[in-house]
C-alpha cells in the first residue's frame, strides 16, 4: 500500500511543541514547590536509610539521670523521659514511619486498585461483590478494624502495616472504581474496543493511565494518614513496639509531658507535619507531570 502523501503540508499546531521531550524528572524540578517537597522527602528517605549511622546517640541509650533535658548543644532536640536523645530517635524513626506509609499504602494501592479496576470495568456481579465487600470493610469503624487485626496478629510494625493497609483498601477500591466507571465511557475506550483490543490491553493502556490522577492524590493523602494512623495505633498501644521509636509513639509518650517538655512532642510532630506535607506536594507535582496536558503547560511555561 503506497500512496503519495497529502499535498499540503500542515503547519505547526497552535501550541508550540518542542520535539525533544523534556524528561519527566527534569519537569518535576521545574516546579519549586514540588522541589521543596522532594527535598524534604529525600531527607526523610535518607534518614530512613542511614538514620542509625547518622544518629549521634543510640536510640535506646537510656540515661535516666539525664532525662527530660531541653534542647542544647549536646542534645539538639533535648532528651526524653528515659534520657534518650530525641534527635537520634526522630532521625531513626523516619524508617518506621516511611515504612508504615509505603508498605501499608502500597498494599492498599495494589489490592484496592486491582479490585476497583476490575469491579468498575467488568461491572455486573463482580462489581456487586467487590463493592459490597468494600462497604463491609468501610462500614467497620476504622480503628476497630485496626484494633482487631492487631489483636489477631499481635502488635508490631508488620501488623500495624497490614491493619492500616486493610483499612485503606476499600477507599482505593472506591476511588478507582468511580474513575474507572467514568473512563470506561470515554470515546477513546470505545475506539480501542472497536479496534478489537482485548480487555486486558484496554485496562492497561487506556483505563489505568487515565485514572492515575485521582489515585495519586488518594495515595499521597493516604500516605499522610497512614503515618498518623500509626500514631493513633500507638496511642492505643498497638503500633510499633518499644523500645523502637516511631514518630507516632514518640508523640504518644510525649503527650504526658506536654506542659513540661515541649521538645518531646514538637520535633516528632514537626517531622510528621513536614513529611505529610512533602508527600502531598510531591503527589500533586507528580500528578501534574503525568498529565500530558499539564506537562505541556509546564514545558511551555518553563520556556522552550
Amino acid at each position: 500500500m503506497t500512496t503519495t502523501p497529502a499535498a499540503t503540508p500542515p503547519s505547526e499546531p497552535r501550541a508550540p511543541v518542542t520535539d525533544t521531550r523534556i524528561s519527566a524528572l527534569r519537569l518535576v524540578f521545574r516546579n519549586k514547590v514540588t522541589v521543596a517537597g522532594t527535598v524534604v522527602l529525600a531527607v526523610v528517605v535518607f534518614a530512613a536509610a542511614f538514620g542509625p549511622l547518622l544518629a549521634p546517640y543510640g536510640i535506646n541509650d537510656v540515661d535516666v539521670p539525664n532525662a527530660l533535658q531541653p534542647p542544647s548543644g549536646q542534645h539538639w532536640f533535648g532528651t526524653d523521659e528515659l534520657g534518650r536523645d530525641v534527635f537520634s530517635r526522630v532521625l531513626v524513626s523516619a524508617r518506621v514511619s516511611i515504612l508504615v506509609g509505603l508498605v501499608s499504602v502500597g498494599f492498599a494501592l495494589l489490592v484496592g486498585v486491582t479490585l476497583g479496576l476490575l469491579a468498575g470495568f467488568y461491572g455486573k456481579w463482580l462489581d456487586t461483590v467487590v463493592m459490597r465487600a468494600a462497604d463491609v470493610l468501610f462500614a467497620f469503624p476504622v480503628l476497630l478494624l485496626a484494633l482487631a487485626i492487631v489483636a489477631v496478629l499481635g502488635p508490631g510494625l508488620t501488623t500495624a502495616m497490614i491493619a492500616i493497609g486493610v483499612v485503606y483498601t476499600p477507599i482505593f477500591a472506591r476511588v478507582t472504581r468511580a474513575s474507572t466507571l467514568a473512563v470506561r465511557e470515554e470515546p477513546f475506550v470505545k475506539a480501542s474496543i472497536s479496534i478489537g483490543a482485548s480487555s486486558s490491553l484496554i485496562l492497561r493502556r487506556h483505563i489505568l493511565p487515565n485514572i492515575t490522577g485521582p489515585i495519586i492524590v488518594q495515595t499521597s493523602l493516604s500516605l499522610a494518614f497512614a503515618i498518623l494512623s500509626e500514631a493513633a495505633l500507638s496511642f492505643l498501644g498497638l503500633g510499633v513496639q518499644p523500645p523502637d521509636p516511631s514518630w507516632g509513639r514518640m508523640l504518644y509518650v510525649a503527650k504526658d509531658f506536654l506542659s513540661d517538655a515541649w521538645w518531646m512532642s514538637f520535633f516528632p510532630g514537626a517531622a510528621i507535619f513536614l513529611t505529610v506535607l512533602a508527600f502531598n506536594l510531591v503527589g500533586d507535582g507528580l500528578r501534574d507531570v503525568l498529565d500530558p496536558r499539564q506537562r505541556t503547560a509546564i514545558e511551555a511555561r518553563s520556556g522552550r
Partner: protein
Amino acid sequence: QEGVDLGDGGGGDSENGRNLVAAIAGEPDQLDPHNTSAYFSFQVLENVYDTLVAPDENLEMQPALAESWETSDDQLTWTFTLRDDVTFHDGSEFTSEDVAYSFNRIIDEELGNAYRFGAVESIETPDEQTVVIKVSSPSPNLLSSIGGFKGMAIVSAENVESGDIQDTPIGTGPFAFDSYTTGDSISLTANEDYWGGAPEIPGVTFRFISEGTTALADLTAGQVDWTDSIPAQQVTSLESNPDVEVGMVPSNDYWYLAPNQASAPYDDVRVRQAIAYAIDRDAITQAASFGNATTNQLAIPESSSWYTEYSEYSLDLERAQQLMDDAGASDLAMELMVTTQYPETVTAAEVIADNLSQIGITVDIRTLDFATWLDEQANGNFDMLMLGWLGNIDPDDFYYNQHHSEGSSNAQGYSNPEVDQLLDEARTETDVAARQGLYDQAATQIADDGSYIYLYNPDVIQAWSPALEGYEPRSDRAIRFADVSFAE
C-alpha cells in the same frame, strides 16, 4: 484558682453541700464484688460494702461488721459476733445469714475468690448475731482472707438473686449506690444510718477519666475533687501546685520479672541470676515511676511488718556475664512480655532491654493487650514477663500462689520442694514470729533461685483539692471517703 462556675461537676446537689467528685482511671466492669476483679470496681465498692473485719491504716485487721471474734484452742473454729445495729441500704436487717450466704456463694459457685476459703469446712449461724467458721487446718491468715478487700464483702441475698447486684449493688457501707451513667460516672449517696456514723458529705461521684492529663486538668479546674489518674511523671510539678494536695504512701504492691522456667535457658538458675544482677533497679524504678517508688529485691516493703532484708543483687555486670558464660548462654534472644494495661511495664521493659543488652541478651519487647497477655501467660508462651501484684496484706496470699508448686499463679513454673514445705508450714503456723521466720526463709530462697526478680514497690499516688479534709491515702489502695468533709 479560676473562678469560673462550670456547674457542679456532674454530681447531685443536696441541701448539705455537694457530692465529692472522684476521678478514677477507668470504668468498673461490673459492681458485683464477688465477681469482679477490676480495681476500678473496688474503688467504688470500697465505699458501698463492708467486710466482717477490715484492715486499718497499718493493715491490722480491725472489727467491722464483726464486733469481735475468737478462735478455738485447736485453731480450727472461728466464732464471730456481729454488730446488731447494721442494716442494708434497702433497709433490711443485716444478720449472720447474710454472712453465711455471701461466703457460701463464693465457695459454691467457685467464684474467683474461692481459693481464699480453701481451708474452710463449714460456715454456721447458731444465731442472728453469730457466725462460726470451721477450718480443716489452722489458718492464721483467715482474717485477712475474709477482710483484706471488698471482694469478700457481705452482700444481700435478695440483691444477688434478683441479678441487680451487677449494676445496682446493695451493701451496708457508708455510701449507697445511687446511679450509673455508662461510660461516664457512678454516683453514691451518703448512708445516713451507717453503723460507723453518717458521712459528712452528701455523696460521692466517681467519674471515669483514663487520660491522666485530663484528670489533672479537671482537678485544677475544680471539676474534680480527688483523683488517682495521675501520670507519674507529673507528680513533681503537681507537688509545687498550691491548688492541689498530693498524697503519696509506699504501697504493698510490687513489680517483678518472671523468667519462664519451662523454656531453656531460663530453667537454668544461673541465667535467672545473671538477669537479676544485670538489671539496674534504680534506673528502672526512676523510669517507670519517676522516683515515686522504692526499689526492692523482695516482695514486701520495709514499711510492712513482714519485711525481710535482702540485697543480694546489686548491679554487677561482670558477675552477670560470668553467670551467663557458666550457663553457656550467649547471644540470647529473649521475648519480654509486657502489657499496655500497665504502661509502667512498657517503660521498664525499655530500660531492661537496654540493661540486658550489655550481657548479650537481645530483648524483644512484646507489648500485648491484657487479655492476650493473660492468655499467653496461661499458656506459658513467654520467655520472661513483667507484672505487678496489687493490694497485698498476708504473705500467704502471694508467696503461696506464685511460688508453691501447686500455686494457682505459678505461671513461671517454679518448683522447689524446700520452698513448698516452708510455705505449707507457714500457712498453718499460728505463732506470728515463727510464721514470719518461715516466710523470711522462703522469700530469700525464692529470690536466690530467681523465681521472681523483684523490682520495686510503687507509691500510692493520689491528689485532691485542698478543700477536701480528712482524706488519707492508704498503702493497700483502698479509697475510703466515709470520713472526709469539705472545708468551708
